[in-house]
């Protein structure tokens, strides 16, 4: 499946695609997320937040080998 997920609205997990090494096969952020909300978009090869179910807990950011992830507090809580 090579669908590209459009992200029309701002999400609270921001991936710096210049730093992200998903193209080298890294999936650490996807693996460690407790709520399993990150996906690898087979269309454009980018890591994206697919579900609005973030616990703003930070393993994705802390375990990222290139520090490519920034987690913001979900808008409803800010």
């Amino acid at each position: 499946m090579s669908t590209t997920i459009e992200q029309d609205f701002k999400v609270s997990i921001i991936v710096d695609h210049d730093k992200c090494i998903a193209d080298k096969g890294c999936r650490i952020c996807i693996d460690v997320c407790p709520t399993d909300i990150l996906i690898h978009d087979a269309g454009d090869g980018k890591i994206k937040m697919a579900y609005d179910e973030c616990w703003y807990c930070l393993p994705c950011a802390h375990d990222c080998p290139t520090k490519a992830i920034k987690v913001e507090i979900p808008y409803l809580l800010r």
Partner: protein
Amino acid sequence: METQHIEVDILVVGGGTAGPLAAIKAKQKAPHLRVLLLDKANVKRAGAIAEGMDSVNNAVIPGYATPEQYVKEITIANDGIVNQASINAYATRSFDMIKELDGWGVKFEKDETGDYAVKKVHHLGSYVLPMPEGYNVKKVLFKQIRKVGVEVSNRLTTTRLLVGEDGRIAGAMALESRTGDFVVIRAKAVVLCTGAAGRLGLPSSGYLFGTYENPTNAGDGYSMAYHAGAELSGLECFQINPLIKDYNGPACAYVTGPFGGYTVNAKGERFIRSDYWSGQMMLEFWRELEGGNGPVFLKLDHLADETVTKIEDVLHVTERPTRGIFHEGRGVDYRHDLVEMHISEIGLCGGHSASGVWVDENARTTVPGLYAAGDLCNVAHNYMLGAMVFGKIAGEDAVDFIEGKEHALVDQEQIENERERIFAPLAREDGISPTQIEYKLRRMVNDYLQPPKVTAKMEIGLKRFAEIRADLDHMKARNPHELMRAMEVHAILDCAELAAKASLYRTESRWGLYHYRTDFEGRNDAEWFNFVEIRKGADGQPELFKRPVPPYIYPIDKSELYGYDAMRIESEELAA
């Protein structure tokens, strides 16, 4: 979507805090056994302590506290309704567990002589051991899991337990939340370590996943244990916490208290003696908010700059490290701003209050071969270290239990029924989304179950819950991820109904705000000095009954038993 079959000796469900210890200790005791540890997330970062922990809340360390003192403190904190044998089972193993964790690489605060630096936060004794570098707990545990050869399986959402024809536990069934596979696991013993029911009430932010507990802890274990016939205990003793408003995480008074932080009302006055979380403390907190003296704040602005920096170095790096990002977003600096606090939505949790699956001092539930440990079991105020100790107790006892036993025989119908239940939302052409049902259900939990508890409200709540139960037949999931959420909605609904029924059954007030019934003010020891238990009856409906409080190992004088009532600071004292 395939069906996978797995056969092991001991199955541990939940890879957070208790689960890893159960699996490690079972494997250490009997290396030849197949021990499987599974989690709906990833064991490396699963559970309440995904980002570590900032302190041990209940360390029983020689020189600071004895098991007797601790057992008495928790007995008093929980208004007498405890099985002291279980609390004592923890207390007598507490120090050994700290030493073992220390040996594995968990960092606890020590003084200049190398002694553990225990602090006083509780009403009576000293049990808090800070972990300023406690962010690595999960990594330390994972290293041990690998070392002893525990098998690990991630992204499996366990939905029902398998019960054998002889009434013995026989395994569990699970959904692989990425592939949509149905997984049938046969085991001779099962240890449930699925955490609290943390997605029960709706946070006041309205954000479904803005919970105090890790939102993966949706109450699956309560539901599974109930449907397997196990006895659940104290579901009317809710978990309600004082949390940072909107952020909905701990502030955290256990960390800040020893540095000189404390809780104040809008006038800047102290009103509670102890920041230790208890129902009695929460009642005073609620009265302050409702009585026109709110908002309530955590006060740190009087502390020296370097003290605040020390606090930030703990609070903004461990347990809930986004606290720092949250405060920054609102321009709050502990040095000159108060932290606004509020009362959380309700949950069920053994580790913080006392609502859980009934276990004895060996972590055994009432179903042979089924164990529960951690926030899921009803050992009061057990917290992280208690979860680890009860995990160890469960894992080791399970090894003895399965000795000489074969896998229990299971009728195929159980498995087929569950397969049908799980996959129904995926098969439907259209329907209601799991998110919508969950939102409505949890809003109703707030409307009708949030204390103070009112009989008429809870009765309406049960009607609404029954309507939502009918809606489950119209729930639609579009993929395995949504199917996982759909199954969680089933568990949340079970927890809501059981919590309402247990609350209605106990016709008195107890545990401060946790079970404050306006129709039944005050405690009634003559009728209610016992546990309220709930289990699935022969007719498939919840059956409620009383379980006597076992005789105390450490007797407590009646005059001391309700010592936590004296939580409010009276105005004369403030003037003095």
